[in-house]
C-alpha cells in the first residue's frame, strides 16, 4: 500500500514542477491537454513534407531510393518468411473443396489450359510475325528467353493507390530493374527496383503503367494504360496510334516490345479486347482490354532474364529445360 502511494506521488512530481513553473511565470492556469506539443506536430509534418519533396523531385535517383532499398533489405526477407509460413494456411480452403488428387489434376489441367490458351492467343500474332520475318531476323533472339521463377510474397494495400507486389527473388537471382514479369497466363508487369533477395514489381493495371501493345489480328500498335483496379474488374485501356483502325471484339493484344527487351519483351499476351469506344470529337479509338492474368490471385511468376544469366536458383531456359 505504502509503496503504491509512493509511486503515485513520484508520478505526480512532474505535475507539481509544472505548477511551480506556472506560478513563477505568472501565467494563468493553462490546461495541459489543450496545447499538446504543437511544435512537435509542426516538426513531424515538416519532416513528412520534406520527405515528399525529396522523393517527388528526386525522381529515380532521389536519396529516398537508397533508404527504400535499405528498408527493403530488412523487410524483404521478413515478408518472404511470413508468406512462406502462411502458405500452408492459405491453401486450407482448397482441402475442403476437393481431395488432394483431384487438386493435382485441376492444377495440371489449368497449366495445360493456360499454355494452350496462350498459344491460341498468339497464333494471329505469330502468323503476322512470320510474314514480316525477313526484316526481323535480328529479333529472333527475342523469341527465346530464360525465366527466373519467383513467388509473390506481398501485395501493396489498395489504400496506397498503387498496384505493386513484392516477389521473393532479387539481385542474387539475376534480377535487375526494368525486366519483364510474366506468368503462364500473360504479362504481369515490370521490375521497378530490387534488393538482394526481393524485387518490387509494378503491375500493368497500375495507373502509372504504360505498355506498348499490339493488336494481334491487325498488328496495329497502341499504348495500354492501367486503371488501378486489381480485382475481377481490373481493366486496361488501349489507345491506338492509328485513329482510323478499329480493333474487333475478342482481338488479342500482345506486347509490342522495346529495344533490348527492357522494360517489356515482345509478343507476351496481355489481354483481350472487350469493348471499343470511339470519340468523334478527339477522333481517337479507345479499346478496353480484359487482361489474361488474374491480378487478385497472383502467385507464381517468371522474370524474363537474358539467357545464361547467373542466378541463385534454377532458371527455366528458352527450350523448357531447367538449369
Amino acid at each position, binding site marked *: 500500500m505504502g509503496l503504491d502511494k509512493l509511486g503515485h506521488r513520484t508520478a505526480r512530481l512532474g505535475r507539481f514542477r509544472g505548477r511551480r513553473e506556472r506560478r513563477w511565470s505568472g501565467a494563468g492556469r493553462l490546461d495541459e491537454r489543450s496545447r499538446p506539443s504543437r511544435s512537435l506536430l509542426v516538426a513531424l*509534418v515538416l519532416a513528412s513534407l520534406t520527405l515528399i519533396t525529396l522523393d517527388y523531385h528526386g525522381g529515380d535517383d532521389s536519396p529516398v531510393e537508397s533508404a527504400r532499398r535499405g528498408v527493403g533489405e530488412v523487410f524483404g526477407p521478413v515478408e518472404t518468411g511470413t508468406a512462406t509460413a502462411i502458405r500452408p494456411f492459405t491453401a486450407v480452403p482448397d482441402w475442403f473443396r476437393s481431395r488432394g488428387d483431384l487438386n493435382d489434376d485441376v492444377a495440371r489441367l489449368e497449366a495445360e489450359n493456360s499454355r494452350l490458351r496462350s498459344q491460341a492467343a498468339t497464333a494471329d500474332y505469330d502468323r503476322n510475325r512470320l510474314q514480316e520475318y525477313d526484316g526481323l531476323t535480328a529479333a529472333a533472339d527475342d523469341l527465346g528467353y530464360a525465366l527466373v521463377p519467383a513467388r509473390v510474397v506481398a501485395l501493396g494495400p489498395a489504400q496506397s493507390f498503387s498496384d505493386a507486389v513484392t516477389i521473393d527473388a532479387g539481385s542474387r537471382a539475376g534480377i535487375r530493374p526494368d525486366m519483364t514479369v510474366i506468368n503462364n497466363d500473360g504479362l504481369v508487369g515490370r521490375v521497378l527496383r530490387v534488393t538482394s533477395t526481393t524485387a518490387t514489381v509494378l503491375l500493368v493495371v497500375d495507373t502509372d503503367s504504360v505498355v506498348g501493345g499490339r493488336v494481334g489480328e491487325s498488328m496495329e500498335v497502341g499504348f495500354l494504360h492501367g486503371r488501378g483496379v486489381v480485382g475481377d474488374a481490373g481493366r486496361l485501356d488501349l489507345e491506338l496510334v492509328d485513329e482510323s483502325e478499329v480493333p474487333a471484339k475478342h482481338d488479342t493484344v500482345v506486347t509490342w516490345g522495346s529495344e533490348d527487351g527492357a522494360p517489356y519483351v515482345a509478343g507476351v499476351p496481355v489481354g483481350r479486347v472487350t469493348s471499343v469506344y470511339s470519340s468523334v470529337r478527339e477522333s481517337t479509338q479507345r479499346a478496353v482490354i480484359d487482361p489474361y492474368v488474374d491480378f487478385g490471385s497472383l502467385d507464381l511468376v517468371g522474370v524474363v532474364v537474358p539467357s545464361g544469366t547467373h542466378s541463385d536458383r534454377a532458371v527455366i531456359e528458352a527450350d523448357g529445360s531447367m538449369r
Partner: protein
Amino acid sequence: MSLMRGVVAALAVSLALVLQVTVFPHLAWQGIVPNLCLLVVVGAALTRGPQFAAVLGFLAGVALDLAPPADHVAGRWALALVVVGYLAGRVRQDVRPTAMAVVATVAASSFVGTSVFAISGLVLRDPALGVPDLLRVILVAVVWDVLLTPFVLPLVMRMFQALEPARTA
C-alpha cells in the same frame, strides 16, 4: 522504460506492416486491406496521448512508405499517420475510453488518414484516379478498420498500458 516502450512500439508497427502486406491480401476485397499500422497508431494515441502517437505515426508512415512493395512518393503515409496520431490523441480523455468511443475514433482516424493520403496523391498527381474511386477505397478501408478494431485495439491498448505503470489516468 521509454527506450523499452520505443522498441516495443517499433516492433508492433513492423509486425502490423508485415501482416498487412503478406497475410491480409489473401482476405482483401479488391485489394483493400485493413490498415493495421493505423490501428496501432490509434491504440497508442488513446493510451499515450498525441505526442507519442504523432512520433509513432511518423515512424509507421515512413515504414509504410519505404518497405516493399510500396511505390508511391515517400512521406505521404508519414504525413497521414502524423495527423492521425495527433488527432486521435486529442480525443483521449482522462478516463478510460468506452468501447464505442474507441470504435468511433478508429472510424474517424481511418477516414482522415486514408483521405489525407489520397489528397496528397491528388496534389502530387501520383495516382491518376478519380474522386469516386478514391472515395470508394476510403470507405471500404473504414469498414475494414472498424471490423478489425475489436481484435486489434484491446491488444494494442493493453500493451501500451502495461508499459505505462506510472500514469494514473
